[in-house]
């Protein structure tokens, strides 16, 4: 019972922080709301029996990506101080597109009998994940490392000063 309440509070808090990522007027606040959302998701991963992925989420996302985002905000700063306007262009058409998508997906989820029949099993330990990465998914794993290198070189070439 206590776990159910905790899960509901967690889900609600995740949605609230996601909402403020999109709604906050100050871009820096948006970045910190995103950090809150990512940490909440990490806790949900623990609830889903995936502690390894939860730790990756905290290290890589809330540690790495949020820092990169703050760098991006501060590098593209025109005024001093920490109030950076983050304008939005709200329109009924855009809300309808997003809302219709969400409602369709929710309808699909709650009317599919196969999903209701699913029961929790084990998620797999870090041990199993490592064996899969260096076994069955070896080639995608290596391709991913090449992609990371390419992305890194691409970012340096794009962002360097001089004859870009």
């Amino acid at each position, binding site marked *: 019972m206590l776990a159910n309440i905790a899960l509901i509070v967690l889900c609600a808090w995740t949605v609230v922080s996601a909402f403020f990522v999109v709604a906050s007027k100050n871009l820096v606040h948006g970045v910190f709301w995103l950090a809150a959302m990512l940490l909440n998701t990490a806790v949900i991963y623990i609830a889903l029996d995936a502690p*390894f992925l939860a730790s990756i989420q905290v290290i*890589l996302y809330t540690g790495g990506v949020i820092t990169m985002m703050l760098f991006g905000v501060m590098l593209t700063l025109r005024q001093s101080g920490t109030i950076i306007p983050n304008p939005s262009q709200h329109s009924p058409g855009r809300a309808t597109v997003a809302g219709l998508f969400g409602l369709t997906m929710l309808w699909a989820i709650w009317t599919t009998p196969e999903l209701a029949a699913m029961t*929790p099993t084990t998620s797999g330990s870090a041990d199993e*994940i490592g064996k*899969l990465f260096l076994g069955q998914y070896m080639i995608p794993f290596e391709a991913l490392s090449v992609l990371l290198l390419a*992305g890194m070189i691409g970012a340096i070439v794009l962002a360097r000063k001089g004859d870009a």
Partner: protein
Amino acid sequence: MMDIRIFLSLAVVLFTIGVYGVLTRRNAVGILLSIELLANAVNLNLVAFGHFGAGAVGQVFALFSVALTVTEVIVGLAIVVLLYRTRQDITVDLASEMSR
């Protein structure tokens, strides 16, 4: 209570909020933040399906997705910095004028 539909619904709500953010934000970094919401919703789906049947494969795919998203953020921010250097402004409407 451990029903997969709760987690899938949460992911859909996060994705919808992210889609609305991508459509309405005018600041390039704001759009990148919304894209992070989308990627996070997808990861949540992968982990949920991993827990409800697929096993460790779900987490393997989620880790692939995390690495792809991080690469995308790096390149995206490099483009934002480049945009700022050429235009002194990162509002995307001005950037679309540039392409004409």
